[in-house]
């Protein structure tokens, strides 16, 4: 397998996100439709059922730098959330989140959002008390 260059990988991800071909419980797209560098993205996660996140929709920002996908993107929650891998400003802390910590260039923004959702639904986290709905950082 050859290495897909950054921009073409992001174009593939964009297309998948635009067409809604991925998982239904998450979504993502470019923040600005004319960001030719494809750096700034928005993501959403639908709170997993049977957890304190049920029926909530979480918004996030994702920043794919120059070195993406060799380096993982920066991920930040806009919606307030109580989750061990998220700091007080809403940043997903790479050292506390395995997908970013052990990042592989085959991973995608979808991988990150799905893994975050999985973490929200895990037995350790699903009962964590959450801030009132609608709060933002």
């Amino acid at each position, binding site marked *: 397998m050859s290495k*897909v260059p950054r921009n073409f990988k992001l*174009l593939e991800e964009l297309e998948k996100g635009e067409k809604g071909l991925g998982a239904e419980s998450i979504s993502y797209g470019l923040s600005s439709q004319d960001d*030719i560098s494809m750096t700034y993205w928005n993501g959403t996660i639908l709170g997993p059922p049977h957890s304190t996140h049920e029926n909530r929709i979480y918004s996030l920002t994702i920043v794919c730098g120059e070195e993406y996908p060799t380096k993982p993107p920066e991920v930040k929650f806009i919606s307030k959330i109580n989750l061990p891998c998220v700091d007080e400003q809403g940043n997903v802390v790479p050292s506390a989140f395995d997908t970013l910590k052990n990042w592989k260039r085959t991973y995608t923004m979808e991988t990150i959002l799905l893994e975050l959702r999985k973490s929200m639904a895990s037995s350790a986290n699903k009962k964590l008390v959450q801030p009132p709905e609608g709060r933002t950082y």
Partner: protein
Amino acid sequence: MAALPKRIIKETERLVSDPVPGITATPSEDNLRYFHVTIEGPSASPYAGGLFKLELYLPDDYPMCAPKVRFLTKIYHPNIDKLGRICLDVLKDNWSPALQIRTILLSIQALLAAPNPDDPLANDVAEDWKKDEQAAIKMAQEWTAKYASTSSQ
């Protein structure tokens, strides 16, 4: 990384030794499937005088599938969207392994000379184009001067 197929090596050699007028394609040092491309705006088009940067990538399945190509220079054209994605039949359904990087880049150059607002990708641009072609052409010229002029690069 797997060895580069002979076909890609040959195409690359010829692009360098026998370049297409008005077009350059240079493979990236760290990825020989990734090319930095420039295309001069055709003289009898609103893009005349502009030098447009593009990027091109040959996926693993090439030549069974088309190269992936995108404009990096902003351009006002009904078949090219805000992200530089190109709507061109030979990049999609009409791709054939008999085509090459060279022929694809020539097709893109021809697309600059002959915008096709009836098969649009950038819908707002295509609408402007159909509503008032003269104004659209003027806009394309302005964008060329602003974003693609060789003196500004």
